[in-house]
Every structure is written in structure tokens, then in C-alpha cells.
């Protein structure tokens, strides 16, 4: 472990940018705000590149203790930063994609009144995310964890005057908190049993322990609780419900936070804790099952959505499921690989969707789009590349990472593989459906726009009367182009197990298991066979989307009608939100209203204050009769008082 004194600068530069923009942005010019935001974010990216260039696996991992923090007997926690191969990958992804999205938001949010606030929040998010990624102990990671939740809340509810946006922000934060509860209990268990939250100390303590095959035990508990936290942050079953609602935020937010970086924090945390998970097979199985089921579940919901951002949101949930499936079967490096490629193509998808929305004046309903390939060729091209990537078509990036996951899943159990393949088919289908509905055919929006006259999707529209869809400015297109290139070539990083070998020192235990699995599963012929299956499945999805949305556009409506209730259930997200509302929200709200509000707050606390005032009033009401103006009653009181005094004296004398 070698010290690196520059590690702490990387998170703190965006924090400085956030502070400057936050405090002084209101009165600054937009150019100044832009400069501050981009300079600080870019500086962090530059530092990350420098560190990457000088990174050597021999002297890794790097660390740096910034300051003391907690001391409680033998337990201590410091503000420490840590950089190993895993952190480096995450660091480059976060700073790189983050910087590109910052540039994009300059164009997207330029006309917004809260422009300075937006850039400040984005920088703040970068600070917290980098703290999360570069932390040396679970507690500093938790700071980042909570902080990105906060930034997410601020950014989802950015247009806070809109009720749905404010509610979505609240929902995201609260559901996240439920996950954080599990995370915290895992931390407490670690403190109690390992006496520390520092990564090296915990993992050194865990390493000599043998895998818990009985299914019970400390490591399984920690693993499951960490998974609860990850499920909250990374939107897995059952805590995924906040992510579709989070689309209320501006599109760059959806791209950065809910596609590329924040939601991947859960995957990163699970990968970082691989030492613990490796020794708790049941927890790993739970992770894999949750991931697989979420992937399939979310993909099925995605087919029926009509809002372009909602489709991408459910796609994100589904792809995150793939990452957890990978971690669950022990293929941690494959999960991180998919995390990286997903950041590229999903970030690109969201940014391109934002470009589409921006270009047609704020409309997000795909049924009102169509034919946009002629109006926005660059957006069409880049989005197409991203769609090919996510569908898993070679040689784009998504193919390499998704196939790696499917291959390793097959090594664990063919069930995982089968569900993964079906999900890949559905993914390809809904992504190409999105492409055909948005860019294919004729533009359906003109008539609808004239009828409406004024769009109601967020204050980022161009205003009424701007009927013709148009391409976005270059400041928005440049990041699209860069991400498209990355989506194309990003996969080659993993060619020939290079990625895996790079991350090997981090996942020492996992690598051994993986090598066993790959040698067990046999020859590369099987691997190529499975590869062919997944590619053809992707192609089938494309074909089906082409048939349904390009050749015979009236078919989908008829199919939906004939499926009736099933289609309705899928279109309404299986009514999960309504189910949660009945099961959890309503009892809580009712309980709070009746018990906590009426009974405790009004009945006890308010009543105590009011009743003490009442008592004072009653006492004074009775005492005022003493002042009657009647001389004889005064005389009587004097006599009574004298009698009491005499009695007391006699009593004291007798004692």
C-alpha cells in the first residue's frame, strides 16, 4: 500500500465547484457558472486520468489518510481514501461520463431559471459519488452513499414547483433510506465482530474464515443486509419503485445518476465486499436470484411503456439486475465490466432521449414521435449505436459484457442463463421498439402539437409555436458522439480476459472460483455456442420489433387488446406501486395520523401544554374568590391561617 497525497483532491474539487456555484451562482452570469462547474469537474477528470496513467499494479493499492474522525476505545474511523484497480475503473467511469454529462447539461439546461442550482447540485453529486468510490472504509463510503441519495433527491425534485417531481424526489429518498437501514445494520455487525470498518482490516479478518455452507452465520447476515442496501440504491426488487418515478428529473440527471453512476453504487459495494460474499454462499445466491428476477421483471414492464424515459428507466433496472446476477455467481469482474459498458450506452441512450425531447419541444410520449431520423440525424445515429450496444450485438460494447455474464451464469446454473437469455430477447425487443417508434415512420407529433398548442412536460420546452423538430446544438451532440465511440469500442477492453486480469488482485478469491468454473464448463465450443444463442436472440428481438412497429404498426394495438388483462397489468407496472401504497404507505400514513398525530402530538404534547395552562386558569378562578372585598371573609382567612401556623407549631413542639 503506497500513499498518494492527491487522492483527496479528486472528490474535493467538485465540492469546491458546488460551493462556489451554490453560494454565488444566483448573481453570476451563466458563463461564469458554466466555467466554474466545468472547470472543477474537468479538473477531477484530469486528475483521474493522471492517476490512471501513473497507476501500476505493483504499487497498488494507494491510500491516503486525510484526517482523524472517530475514536471510541479500540474502534477508530478516519477520513481515508483508497485506490485500487476496482476504484480506478469506477473513478474513470464516474469522472469521464460525469464530465461528458456536465457538458451536455450546459446545453440542455441553459434556458432554465435554476441553471446555477442545477450545476451546483451536479457538482455536489460528483463529490459524493467520488467519496463513495474512493473511500477506504465503509463509513466514508456511507457518507458518499447517503450523499448521492441527497443529490438524487435534490435533482429529481429539481423542478420542485411541480407536485409530481417533488413527490418523486421524496419517494426516491425514502425508499433509499429503507435500503440504508439494512446497510447500517451490516455496518454495526461489522463493528461488533471485526472491530473496524476499514476495508483492509475487515477483509483481513474475514479471509481466514471458511465459507458458511450451513446457510446461517455472521457473514451471511452481513451479506444479506448489504444486499438490502444495494437493492435500495441500485433499484432491485423490492426497492426499485423509485427509479421510474425518478424520471421526473431533467434528462441529464437521469443519465448521470440513474443510469451511469449512482445506481451502480450498489454493484460497486457488492463487488468491493466480494471477500465477504464469497464466504457466504447463501447470500450470493440471494444476490443472484434477486438480480435475475429483477432483470426479467423490469424488462417485461419495459415493453409496454409509452414514455421514452420510462422505457429507459426500466431498462436500467433490468441491466442492473444483470450486474447483480454476475456478482451473485461470483463473476464480480464481469459485473463491473457490464457496469462500465452500461454507463457508456445507457448514458448515451438517456442523453440522446434528452436530445429528442429537447428537439420536439418537451414531448416524451413515443406515440407522438416518429420519423425523427430525418430531423435529427446525429441523435438518430448515436442512439442507434447505443441500442445495438444494449441489445448485445457484436462488436458493440454491450455484447462483450453481457455475454461474459451469461457465460459465467451458465457456469453456475442453466436457469440463470435461460432467464438471462430471455431477458436479452425482451431487451432487444423493447429497445428496437423504442427506436422504431421514435425515429421510424412519419412524425405523428405535428397534429398532436397543434391540438395541444402548449406542452406540459417540464419548463424545458421551447414554448408553443415551435412546431418543427430540430437537431440539438453541438454542445449536446459532442458528448453523444464521444459516448457513441465508447459504446462501440468500449467492449474491447475485456477482450481476452484482459479486464478480468486487471481486476484480479481485487477479487482474488473470486478469480480462483471463476477459473474453476470455466475449466469445469469445458471447452470454448460451448462458449461460442452460447454466444451464438444470445446474438441470435438479440436479432430475433430486433426482427420482432421491426415487424410490429415498422411493417405492421397496427398490430401492437390489436395484440394488446386481445391480451386484455395481462397487457393492462404489464402496462400498469403489475400494480406494484398500488400494492405498496396499500400494504405499506397507507398503514403508515394512517398510523401516523391517528396515533402519532392525534394521540401523541395533539393528545399528549399539546394537551400537556394546554392543560397546564388550563390548570393555572382553574386555580386562579378558584383563588380569586379570596379577594371578595368582604371584610369578614378576610378575617376568616386570617383566622384560618393563624390556626394552621399554631397547629404546626404545636405539632413541632410535640415532636
Amino acid at each position: 500500500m503506497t500513499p498518494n497525497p492527491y487522492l483527496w483532491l479528486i472528490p474535493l474539487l467538485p465540492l469546491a465547484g458546488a460551493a462556489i456555484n451554490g453560494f454565488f451562482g444566483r448573481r453570476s452570469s451563466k458563463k461564469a457558472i458554466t466555467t466554474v462547474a466545468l472547470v472543477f469537474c474537468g479538473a477531477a477528470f484530469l486528475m483521474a486520468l493522471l492517476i490512471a496513467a501513473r497507476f501500476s499494479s505493483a504499487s497498488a493499492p494507494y491510500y491516503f489518510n486525510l484526517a482523524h474522525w472517530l475514536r471510541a476505545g479500540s474502534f477508530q474511523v478516519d477520513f481515508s481514501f483508497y485506490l485500487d484497480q476496482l476504484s480506478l475503473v469506477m473513478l474513470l467511469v464516474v469522472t469521464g461520463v460525469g464530465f461528458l454529462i456536465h457538458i451536455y447539461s450546459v446545453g440542455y439546461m441553459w434556458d432554465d431559471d435554476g441553471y446555477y442550482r442545477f450545476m451546483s447540485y451536479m457538482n455536489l453529486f460528483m463529490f459524493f459519488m467520488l467519496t463513495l468510490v474512493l473511500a477506504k472504509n465503509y463509513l466514508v463510503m456511507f457518507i458518499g452513499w447517503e450523499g448521492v441519495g441527497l443529490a438524487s433527491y435534490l435533482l429529481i425534485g429539481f423542478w420542485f414547483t411541480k407536485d409530481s417531481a417533488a413527490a418523486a424526489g421524496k419517494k426516491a429518498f425514502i425508499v433509499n433510506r429503507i435500503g440504508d437501514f439494512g446497510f447500517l445494520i451490516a455496518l454495526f455487525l461489522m463493528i461488533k465482530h471485526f472491530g473496524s470498518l476499514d476495508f483492509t482490516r475487515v477483509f483481513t479478518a474475514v479471509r481466514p474464515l471458511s465459507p458458511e455452507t450451513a446457510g446461517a452465520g455472521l457473514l451471511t447476515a452481513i451479506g444479506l443486509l448489504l444486499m438490502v442496501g444495494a437493492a435500495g440504491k441500485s433499484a432491485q426488487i423490492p426497492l426499485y419503485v423509485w427509479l421510474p418515478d425518478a424520471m421526473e428529473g431533467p434528462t441529464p440527471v437521469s443519465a448521470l445518476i440513474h443510469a451511469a453512476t449512482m445506481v451502480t453504487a450498489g454493484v460497486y459495494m457488492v463487488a468491493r465486499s466480494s471477500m465477504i460474499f464469497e464466504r457466504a454462499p447463501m447470500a450470493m445466491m440471494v444476490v443472484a436470484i434477486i438480480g435475475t428476477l429483477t432483470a426479467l421483471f423490469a424488462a417485461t414492464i419495459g415493453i409496454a411503456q409509452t414514455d421514452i424515459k420510462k422505457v429507459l428507466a426500466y431498462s436500467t433496472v433490468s441491466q442492473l439486475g444483470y450486474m447483480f446476477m454476475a456478482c451473485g455467481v461470483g463473476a464480480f469482474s464481469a459485473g463491473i465490466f457490464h457496469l462500465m459498458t452500461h454507463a457508456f450506452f445507457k448514458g448515451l441512450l438517456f442523453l440522446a432521449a434528452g436530445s429528442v425531447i429537447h428537439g420536439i419541444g418537451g414531448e416524451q410520449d413515443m406515440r407522438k414521435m416518429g420519423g425523427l431520423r430525418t430531423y435529427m440525424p446525429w441523435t438518430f445515429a448515436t442512439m442507434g449505436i447505443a441500442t445495438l450496444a444494449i441489445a448485445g450485438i457484436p462488436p458493440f460494447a454491450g455484447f462483450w459484457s453481457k455475454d461474459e455474464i451469461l457465460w459465467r451464469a451458465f457456469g453456475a446454473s442453466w436457469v440463470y442463463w435461460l432467464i438471462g437469455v430471455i431477458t436479452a430477447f425482451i431487451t432487444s425487443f423493447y429497445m428496437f421498439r423504442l427506436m422504431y417508434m421514435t425515429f421510424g415512420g412519419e412524425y405523428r407529433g405535428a397534429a398532436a402539437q397543434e391540438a395541444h398548442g402548449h406542452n406540459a412536460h417540464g419548463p424545458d420546452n421551447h414554448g408553443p409555436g415551435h412546431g418543427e423538430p430540430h437537431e440539438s446544438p453541438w454542445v449536446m451532440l459532442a458528448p453523444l458522439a464521444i459516448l457513441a465511440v465508447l459504446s462501440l469500442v468500449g467492449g474491447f477492453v475485456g477482450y481476452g480476459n484482459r479486464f478480468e486480469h486487471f481486476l484480479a488482485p481485487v477479487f482474488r478469491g473470486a478469480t480462483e472460483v471463476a477459473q474453476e468454473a470455466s475449466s469445469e464448463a469445458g471447452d470454448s465450443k460451448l462458449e461460442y455456442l452460447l454466444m451464438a444463442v444470445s446474438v441470435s436472440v438479440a436479432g430475433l428481438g430486433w426482427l420482432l420489433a421491426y415487424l410490429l412497429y415498422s411493417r405492421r404498426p397496427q398490430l401492437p394495438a390489436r395484440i394488446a387488446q386481445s391480451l386484455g388483462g395481462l397487457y393492462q397489468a404489464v402496462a400498469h407496472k403489475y400494480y406494484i406501486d398500488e400494492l405498496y401504497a396499500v400494504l405499506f404507505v397507507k398503514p403508515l400514513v394512517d398510523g401516523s395520523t391517528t396515533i402519532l398525530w392525534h394521540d401523541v402530538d395533539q393528545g399528549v404534547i399539546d394537551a400537556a401544554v394546554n392543560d397546564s395552562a388550563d390548570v393555572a386558569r382553574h386555580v386562579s378562578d378558584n383563588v380569586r374568590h379570596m379577594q371578595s372585598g368582604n371584610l369578614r371573609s378576610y378575617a376568616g382567612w386570617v383566622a384560618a391561617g393563624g390556626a394552621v401556623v399554631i397547629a404546626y407549631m404545636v405539632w413541632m413542639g410535640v415532636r
Partner: protein
Amino acid sequence: MIPLSYYLLLSGILFACGVLGFLIKRNIITIFMSIELMLNGVNLSFVAFAAQWHALSGQVFVFFVMVVAAAETAVGLAIIIAVYRTRETLNVDRVNLLKL
């Protein structure tokens, strides 16, 4: 030879009569007389103890009590005269201008 308790009993009775009159009577002058009665009952008690313990200071104290009683009576009667001039009554229940 009179037992001490007789003196004290008499003193107590006098005091009790004084208190009763003080509380029950409506005529201001009667109330004042009751006050005097109370004070004299106490005087008797003082003298009895002084005689029993051969302590002359008991009698000197009676002296002071009487002086104070006289002063108080003087002032009290002056007040009665003033009240009578304004309220034209000696009924203590009618003197209720102190009521708020």
C-alpha cells in the same frame, strides 16, 4: 394554689371567645372588642407562666402587649369613625368597596 392548667384553660376560652366574636359578629365595634378579648386572653397566659417560673419578664411582656393593644385600638376606632362618615353604617358586610 391554683393549678396552672386552670389559668391556661381560661386563657384558651377567652381566646376562643375572641376568635368566635371576631369571625361571627357584624358590628365593627364588637369585632374590635373581640380582638381586645383575644389579646387579654394571651396576657393571662403570659402572667400565669411568669408566676409559675418566677420570671418577671413575662409581666413586662404583658406590659408591651397592652401598649400595642391600646395603640391599635386607637387607630382602629379612628378608622371606624372615618368609615362611618362615608358609609353611614357599622355593618362590616356593607364595607365592601374593596371588591374588584
